[in-house]
């Protein structure tokens, strides 16, 4: 059974804009992105929205629905009351290009700052031998669809734009953890995680985990283990002493 829903959609360019009210038809089984498309087709042909797969796998249609970061294509209209006004805004942490479309190039810049997978020099491709239990931690992080909602919701940069140069955000701190846990990665990532990518800014309030559409345990399985690895390297005198003795006897 269809009904008329009340929508408030942020419209504007370059940050300047306002919430516009619409009344739009909703049919059974639809998601928010379907309704946004109906708005485009019937009332606001110039409404900009980024989308692609409509299956929660491409990470394109990240937006904020009633203030919460969500994928438009995975947010069912049946989760709202029919009388409810649904507010749709662009992601708050990134600059707006137009309407619901944001410029997420901050994330691509941060991705480029992380050194890629670095295998040992004496191991050639094809010679890697790993058991499943050695790689399954990293495999969880490979489920990331790069919707960037974790970086969007993280208050370190959401509420403090000035922290952007120093903080890579949960998505890329998770990438560092993924590489650091890899059995064949030999790059030193612990110091750089803390000093260059801002792991210390994270105060583990777990919003990244809450919004992840792939249900990756970003905080518990990536950020906290990485923090513990940094403690090994920088803050634990016993581990430091143990490493010194081990290296000396090994040498």
């Amino acid at each position, binding site marked *: 059974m269809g009904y008329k829903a009340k929508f408030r959609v942020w419209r504007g360019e370059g940050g300047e804009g306002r919430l516009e009210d619409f009344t739009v038809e909703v049919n059974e089984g639809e998601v928010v992105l379907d309704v946004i498309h109906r708005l485009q087709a019937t009332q606001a042909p110039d409404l900009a929205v980024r989308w692609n797969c409509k299956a929660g796998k491409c990470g394109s249609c990240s937006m904020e629905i009633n203030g919460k970061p969500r994928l438009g294509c995975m947010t069912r209209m049946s989760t709202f009351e029919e009388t409810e006004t649904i507010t749709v805004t662009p992601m*708050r942490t990134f*600059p707006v290009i137009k309407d619901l479309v944001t410029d997420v190039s901050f994330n691509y810049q941060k991705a480029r700052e992380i050194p890629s997978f670095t295998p040992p020099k004496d191991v050639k491709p094809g010679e890697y031998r790993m*058991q499943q239990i*050695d790689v399954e931690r990293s495999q969880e992080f490979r489920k990331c669809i790069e919707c960037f909602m974790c970086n969007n*919701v993280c208050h370190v940069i959401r509420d*403090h734009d000035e922290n952007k140069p120093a903080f890579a955000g949960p998505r890329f701190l998770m990438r560092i953890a993924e590489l650091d846990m890899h059995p064949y990665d030999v790059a030193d990532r612990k110091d750089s995680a803390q000093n260059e990518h801002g792991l*210390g800014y994270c105060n583990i309030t777990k*919003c990244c985990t809450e919004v992840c559409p792939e249900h990756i345990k970003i905080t518990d399985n990536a950020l906290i283990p990485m923090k*513990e690895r940094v*403690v090994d390297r920088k803050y634990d005198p016993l581990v430091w002493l143990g490493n010194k003795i081990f290296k000396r006897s090994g040498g």
Partner: protein
Amino acid sequence: MTQTTAENPARKQRAQIKVRTLRTDRWWLAPALTFTGLMAFLVYGFWAIFDQSYLAGQYIAPFASPCLATSCPEGARLFGLAPFGDWYTLPPGLLILGLPGGFRLTCYYYRKSYYRSFWLSPPACSVAEPHGKYTGETRLPLIIQNIHRYFFYFAAIIGLILTYDAVLAFRDKDGNWGHVGLGTIILVVNAILILAYTFGCHSCRHITAGRLNHFSKHPIRYKAWTFVSKLNAKHQQFAWASMFSVMIADLYVRLVAKGIINFPFA
């Protein structure tokens, strides 16, 4: 109309939405409940430190164990030891409560809970925090949170002592084994929850095998990590359950010691 080219500086601006949040759910409820729960724990702990009724026959109140001063009654001392002599006149609870207290204060779960509920940083996801500046745990004092694993070592010892106390609670007032009272059950449940919380800690998870990259080369440590990971997945639940269980167990023993509870199966 504004051009939307890559060179246009207007692209540097976020959506100018003036309200603190557009969330319509009761986002304030979780931090409010957390604040209330943690405050209750702090107030109770403060009272318990100065209350002297911590030994009731075979039961010792968890907030006073191990009792390390000569002012402690014989039955409350761990293995009869009292390393702090007559010169120590402050409440004996002060000697040890800093260790489990520090463990909880630096715990990754509790950090989340009090950063949200006390410091509002942030109070809830996608709700703006009120602070103008944020440096997180990059500098003093919050960089000290990295000491957590040392508190874990001490908290593990305290947890084992509370387990020992729970075992001793199977004796009756005359020291004969086989007694099972309500206090015994409360102390055993408390010890289990404390152990589940303590050994499900993120630092414990890291120490068992989290720091390794080759699990397959360390099968025993991997098994330990797998077990700790299962506890760790419920760390929040164990944190709350053990916090309330330790308060309930402590209060129960004190009420028995004061004679307020004196029914036959106490």
